[in-house]
């Protein structure tokens, strides 16, 4: 078996890299794939929190590199899904504790046992980014329809294109707010795709459910009623090669929503 190594990156912080990582990983594992997630954000680890695994971490990636434990010993199994594992970042060390070569070696070793290796990249374009990208052959660039996030995504795409090892990269547009797009207050999906001229792999709506799911340490893809969860599930299916149409984020169900929409439409015109 030779698993696919996908790095999830963004340039800008706070656009949802780690949330994306946790959800895509969980969705792939729910689909029966063997998945391992590597948190490379040394010193600022968070992936363990989003998965609710913070109390189970014994060894980290730095312990593996410095040979205090075997790679297999450092993998933390998910509570719900035995297909899902996490290799946590060290919280007390900085980005120089692991080198590009060492990360590459870890990815190569994990490829033997897993279908997917998802690498959670730190924000920025410094050594932390270079390390995270080192072992990957695919990339997902997370961005939001905001100017600074799009600008940083453009920079990241430029850097990814210069890397020979990265065979393909896809764009994931996070925190999309259909109402703001409709009122022409936010850039649309089409605007962002045209500006960055990259292939889209997912559109995730802004969802308050993400906050509660993070608080609980339970990725939102486990909630079958959530729209964001559905969108993340679709991303996982696209990664597996399925042709899934993008969700219609403007679908309004129920009479109440329609009445509300009618009135908000009137209010908007009066301004």
């Amino acid at each position: 078996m030779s698993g696919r190594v996908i790095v999830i990156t963004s340039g800008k912080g706070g656009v949802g890299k780690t949330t994306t990582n946790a959800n895509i990983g969980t969705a792939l594992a729910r689909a029966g794939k063997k998945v391992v997630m590597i948190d490379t954000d040394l010193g600022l680890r968070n992936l363990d929190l989003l998965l609710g695994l913070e109390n189970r971490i014994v060894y980290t990636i730095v312990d593996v590199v410095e040979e205090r434990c075997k790679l297999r010993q450092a993998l933390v199994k998910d509570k719900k899904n035995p297909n899902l594992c996490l290799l946590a970042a060290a919280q007390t060390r900085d980005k120089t504790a692991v080198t590009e070569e060492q990360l590459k070696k870890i990815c190569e070793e994990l490829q033997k046992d897993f279908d997917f290796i998802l690498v959670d990249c730190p924000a920025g374009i410094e050594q932390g980014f270079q390390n995270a990208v080192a072992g990957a052959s695919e990339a997902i660039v997370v961005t939001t329809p905001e100017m600074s996030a799009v600008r940083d995504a453009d920079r990241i795409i430029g850097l990814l294109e210069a890397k020979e090892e990265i065979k393909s990269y896809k764009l994931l547009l996070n925190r999309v707010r259909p109402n703001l797009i409709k009122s022409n207050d936010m850039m649309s999906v089409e605007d962002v795709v045209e500006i960055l001229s990259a292939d889209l792999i997912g559109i995730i709506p802004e969802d308050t459910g993400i906050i509660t799911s993070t608080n609980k340490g339970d990725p939102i893809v486990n909630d079958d009623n959530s729209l964001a969860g559905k969108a993340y599930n679709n991303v996982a299916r696209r990664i597996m090669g399925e042709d899934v149409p993008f969700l219609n984020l403007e679908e309004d169900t129920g009479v109440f929503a329609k009445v509300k929409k009618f009135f908000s439409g009137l209010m908007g015109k009066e301004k």
Partner: protein
Amino acid sequence: MKDIFQDLFNKVFGFFRQAEKEENAKDTAVNRLRVVLMQDRTNLTPELLEKMRGELIELLSKYVEMDKDALELNFEQEGNQMALMLSIPVLRAKDEDEIEDAEAEDEASENNEDEAGENQDEEQVSQEEEIQEEESESEKQESNTNSKQNKSK
């Protein structure tokens, strides 16, 4: 009664005019991003762009009379490709005599410039050569001292 209608008309008319004028937040974002990304991608600074603009105006005014202030030089994106778009508001094309005059003028000034330039070039070259010679001499000296040191060891 008439006043009320007048007032209403003004309000409605004013609303539509305002709506036309105001650029929405989305378009502002898209336009600002385009400009900033062009600069990021090409590493072309606004100063260089301005210089290019000035030289283009100089060149083109030989052939056409144009509104220099309204000339626009911008990057535009078409798919994966970047294009440098030049929009020139032409007032009128110059006739052949004018172009010939301009060419004659250019040639005259070019000749002057060339002569001056050639002299300068020669001076520069000779200076560079001197520097190189000095360098190679100092290298020789260094290697001499090195070999001396080696010998003494």
